[in-house]
């Protein structure tokens, strides 16, 4: 029974180790008059130890992980918070093509130019970028989601107040795009919520990436040492 267990436990050893020491290890076991449970445990325990990364490897993984965490946190701290405000509207009597048309209308160039001017959007970029680029940037920051007869319209901005005001304007423009009463506002522009960057997620990603790089570095180092040997 114990000899059967030992054969199984030996499979847990790294294959390179088995190639090098397997035969003489078996010879040592054959020399032993009896195999006790303590011997089986000893063989199993050593297999586990051989599979556990050594202290130097753990140290490298930890150092790289910590560096990754700090870098990711540093970078995420330099990214300005993005806020999103949303308004919920209802368009029960409108079909989808008409709704799409209304949405296309409020995202039209002139409407977006009006929003840029009214709210002073992208003030730092206005000096250096053509108006068409600003219009595109504004369009990208508008979020429209359709679900059944409900429309959620929102705006993303680094300024929470602007996010809320532009959302409010977009909702009003959408109701005005159709005959009064066809689109109604269910919820006014919500209090802006910071949604990006998720610093915890970014920091944890940095930690994980660092640990992976550390592990890879340790592997390369171990291989180089083996080749040199």
């Amino acid at each position: 029974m114990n000899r059967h267990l030992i054969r199984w436990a030996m499979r847990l050893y790294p294959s390179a180790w088995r190639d090098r020491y397997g035969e003489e290890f078996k010879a040592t076991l054959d020399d032993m008059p009896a195999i006790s449970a303590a011997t089986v445990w000893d063989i199993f325990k050593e297999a586990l130890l051989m599979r556990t990364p050594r202290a130097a490897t753990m140290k490298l993984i930890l150092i790289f992980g910590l560096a990754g965490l700090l870098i990711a946190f540093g970078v995420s701290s330099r990214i300005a918070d993005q806020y999103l405000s949303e308004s919920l509207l209802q368009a029960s009597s409108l079909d989808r093509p008409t709704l799409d048309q209304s949405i296309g209308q409020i995202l039209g160039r002139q409407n977006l130019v009006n929003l840029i001017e009214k709210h002073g959007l992208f003030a730092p970029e206005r000096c250096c970028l053509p108006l068409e680029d600003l219009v595109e940037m504004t369009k990208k920051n508008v979020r429209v989601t359709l679900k059944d007869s409900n429309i959620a319209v929102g705006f993303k901005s680094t300024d929470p107040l602007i996010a809320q005001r532009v959302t409010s304007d977009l909702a009003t423009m959408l109701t005005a795009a159709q005959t009064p009463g066809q689109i109604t506002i269910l919820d006014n522009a919500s209090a802006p919520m910071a949604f990006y960057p998720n610093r915890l997620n970014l920091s944890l990603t940095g930690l994980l990436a660092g640990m992976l790089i550390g592990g890879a570095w340790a592997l390369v180092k171990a291989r180089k040492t083996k080749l040199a040997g």
Partner: protein
Amino acid sequence: MNDPNLLILTSLADGDKHGYAMMEDIQVFSGVSLGPGTLYGAITRLEERGWIRPTKSTDRRQPYTLTAAGKRHLSEQLESLNRFVAQGRLRLEQT
């Protein structure tokens, strides 16, 4: 004293031995019963460090011998143990 590395180096100090011979020898001179897993884990490390090396053998049993670096290391370790023992005795006598 139950450091497998030191026990193996000491066992090989008076001549080459294979795995089971080392286990028996260690049991006799130190009273420590090394399991085969622990023994071969330590043999792996000692060989990696260049303190022991396998000798030529036609048998499945592989004998090992102490290298010059292994002898030096064992000597240093025993010196350190001697100082430790002497210090311990001295302090015991003072009390």
